[in-house]
């Protein structure tokens, strides 16, 4: 966890610098003696810097890594899931909901350890159609075609 904290606190400091740079360029439009549009972002930037710095210092001081459960967040399955969702939302506006959703659904079912081809094909098609018509006819929300 110490290594993770060190990397992320440095990343936070870099983000803080970028945020402050952008805040600096916010146009000044304000009445005299009153806070302008950049006032609140400056407060955020200062707090962000202080906290990132504290996180960095705290982890630099800590010598040993505390005992922790070994629980991997980004394991292989999760990476495939992220990729699957990314491809799905990228292709959705191009191909339309009815075409791409059954493929996404089938891919996800397979990823979630469902290996029966018959079940995958039946559910991916029927649920896609159900969601499409539910949104279109009941909720009057038109999904991309």
């Amino acid at each position, binding site marked *: 966890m110490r290594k993770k904290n060190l990397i992320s606190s440095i990343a936070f400091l870099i983000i803080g610098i970028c945020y402050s740079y952008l805040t600096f360029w916010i146009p000044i439009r304000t009445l005299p003696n009153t806070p302008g549009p950049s006032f609140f972002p400056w407060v955020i930037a200062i707090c962000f810097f202080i906290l990132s710095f504290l996180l960095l210092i705290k982890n630099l001081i800590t010598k040993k890594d505390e005992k922790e459960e070994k629980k991997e967040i980004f394991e292989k399955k999760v990476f495939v899931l992220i990729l699957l969702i990314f491809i799905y939302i990228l292709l959705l*506006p191009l191909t339309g909901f009815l075409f791409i959703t059954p493929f996404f659904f089938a891919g996800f079912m397979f990823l979630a350890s469902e290996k029966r081809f018959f079940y995958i094909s039946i559910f991916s098609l029927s649920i896609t159609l159900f969601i499409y018509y539910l949104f279109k006819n009941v909720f009057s929300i038109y999904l991309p075609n």
Partner: protein
Amino acid sequence: MNPDIYEGFVKSAQLLSLLATCAGSFIGLIVGMIPGMTISAGIIIVLPLTFVLPPSISISLLLGLYAGGMMGGSFSAILLKIPGTPSASATALDGYPLASSGKAHIALSTAIISSFLGGLFSFICLYFIAPELAEVALSFRAPDLFSLVFFGLSVICSFATKSIIKGLLSGIIGLLFVSIGQDPVMGTERFTFGNPDLLSGIHFLTALIGLFAIPQLADNLRESTKNFNHNKKNSEIKGLLPSLKNLKIMRLPILIGSFLGTFIGILPGAGGPIAAFISYDYTKKINKNPKKFGKGCIEGVAAPESANNAVCGGALIPMMTLGIPGDPVTAILIGALLVHGLAPGPLLFMEQAPFAYSVIFSFFWANLFNLLIAMSTLPLLIKLLKTPKSLLLPIIAVLCVVGSFALRNSFFDVYIMFAFGLLGLFMKWLDMPVVPLLLALVLGRQLEEHMRIALTSSQGDISIFFTSPISIFFLCLSTISISWPIFFRRRKKLSL
């Protein structure tokens, strides 16, 4: 009778509203039962469906889900020893031993009755306290409102259980996102990079869907191969009506749980799990035979169950009257109301009084439907626990994508949802709590607005926040709220 109250009651008792509450309760019971599915995730999935519904109907559905989820969590805690929601953790302590000894029906009926009575008690408190509190809150001026919102945000510390720095950082990241778009006072563009989609800022609900749903999908996917072990003894549930003797035993624990649950629910940040454990502990302490706790006693189920359902009504009090969310679910409910152009706060009781009362009465109906549905369809609900995750997870994923698109008919929102999903996973990797970010997203804009209005009226003099007694009161509360977890942790460390 006050015409607003009457109109609110009629509104909540219309057929469509009742159907929505009933549907919400049913979905809530299922969502609450499924381990790994939180009530927040359930509400997020249903949320897109409510955009097109009138506000009173959509809020009825969501309230049904909220109350139903709290009750549903106890079923899996009793039958599987896996709490469906964190609030049901205390129920498992005595619920599971009761079920294991072949008395699952007694444990379940105790949970159902206690949940209903706990909810009912908090409804009564909500009905009487909320309008009075709203009237007091009407006199608040900009500095008071700033301090109030600041107090709401200070709750962040109680969610940062492992590291206060990380909890505060999570809140600041939320404020950083809030500053994107036009500023709330002058309308100046900030951090939009010339993108018109960012002019109105990042939509709170889009961010929420990504933050909660994608990490939850990832969590469940990792465990999708695990199957729940159903105890055969528990599969057949018969005779859910409690006996008179058992009702007598439940009396006092329910009263303790309801009172503590409602009170803890009003305090922002405490939430269901704390209320359930405190009332369990208190009931155990005052019981003549505390040794029987943990081995399967009715009191050990009744106290936490009445407490966690009473928390719902308690949490609705600051949400409706002050616009301050007490837990993630009430934060989402605020977002749902904002989508319909209704801002929770004291003005809701002034400008939309019938609607405000209809929300209160919908909470009553939600509790009643929970009781009726749970009593009549429990065997069916238990069978639904066996729904394979390989089917459930893709449905949730598609609904999340469709939901974020449906919000403003924009694919930009879908991409934002995905980006927040990655952020949620990153925060989990870093062991950083997500709830502070969520609270900052809900309250950040108000915080800036009230602060700037107050400072404009005082010509930039910050002493304005320390001259009003109301403002001082909330600032003192904020100080306690921030320092309490630090003090508590130090004491804990010293005692170790």
